[in-house]
């Protein structure tokens, strides 16, 4: 079968991207904050509620050929929290919740990445919120793309481990202790 040369070139390009790894490995570095999302999901008296962190920034080093060498640091300024209501946002910044005056930023620093196969990786690291540092690990799915790759995952936290929601809020009766942090991080390839 005879194809015009341009189609063959496009096909070759598609194949190259499709087989990320090996000779065509792309190293990702810049976190595209505008295209990424970091949100959280919790339950309030049986009602599931979703919130977002409107601001965050981070570094992400990932080479599909050397996933063990990957590393990431993500920082979330907690004043950018969106709980869904203005009243909730004010409350979240208060001393009993995130105490953003004393601890303005939540930080995750990875310590290791383990391949799980099929573009899935187990990421371990330390999460610091409100001055409480905890070891966490969670699975991340890597989706390669022509101009950017995405890294999707979630981790479930117990808010009391971090002192989030103290005093009158500490009971799980109103706001559940379990909080799921859901992220969709988009990174662009490093400039060669």
């Amino acid at each position, binding site marked *: 079968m005879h194809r015009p040369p341009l189609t063959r070139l496009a096909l070759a390009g598609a194949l190259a991207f499709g087989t990320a790894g090996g000779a065509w490995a792309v190293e990702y570095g810049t976190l595209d904050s505008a295209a990424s999302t970091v949100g959280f999901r919790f339950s*309030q*008296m*049986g*009602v*599931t*509620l979703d919130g977002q962190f409107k601001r965050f920034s981070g570094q992400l080093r990932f080479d599909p050929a050397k996933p063990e060498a990957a590393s990431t640091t993500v920082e979330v300024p907690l004043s950018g929290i969106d709980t*869904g*209501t203005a*009243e*909730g946002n*004010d*409350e979240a910044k208060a001393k009993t919740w995130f105490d953003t005056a004393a601890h303005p930023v939540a930080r995750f620093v990875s310590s290791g990445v383990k391949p799980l196969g099929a573009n899935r990786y187990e990421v371990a690291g330390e999460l610091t919120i409100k001055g409480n540092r905890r070891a966490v690990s969670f699975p991340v799915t890597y989706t390669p793309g022509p101009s950017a790759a995405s890294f999707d995952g979630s981790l479930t936290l117990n808010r009391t481990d971090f002192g989030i929601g103290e005093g*009158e*809020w500490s*009971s799980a*009766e*109103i*706001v559940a202790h379990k909080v799921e942090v859901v992220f969709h991080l988009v990174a662009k390839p490093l400039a060669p």
Partner: protein
Amino acid sequence: MNPRYTSTAIALHWLIALGILAAFSLGLYMTELNLSPTKLKLYSWHKWAGVSLFVLILVRLGWRLTHPAPALPDSMPTLLRLAANVSHWLLYALMLAIPLSGWLMSSAKGFQTVWFGVLPLPDLLAKDAALGDQLKEVHEFLNYTLLALVVLHTAAALKHHFIDRDTVLSRMLPRFQKS
């Protein structure tokens, strides 16, 4: 022997009356509170009460449609009869519209209603803060309209009992003695 309402109609009338009084008072109180666990708990209770009342009112409406109310006294002027009929159906309409508006408001404000924290009701509206505020106005307006009608309803019942001295009120009162 003057005809009375059925025991079921009487029980539903007073149960719903107490429920509305409780949910209405709770609504007035909870909205004045600053954000606290108590406030969130009361909001949930208010919504649970609203859904429960909606179900009870549907049952009551079904009963009313299959068990006609006893006739009004022959002595009542036609215009007052008409007023009594209209205001009763308006009460039913409001009792259904109020919990519905609350449910829609909750969805628009981004909070799904989960009956007793267990049974999630679908969100008929997507989150929309401006629409949520409008529905709050609607919910309040319907409630104050209901309040005005309940005042009228109570005044009319008392007038029947103490001025007209007929059985319009007593036929809706629970009868505790054996007859």
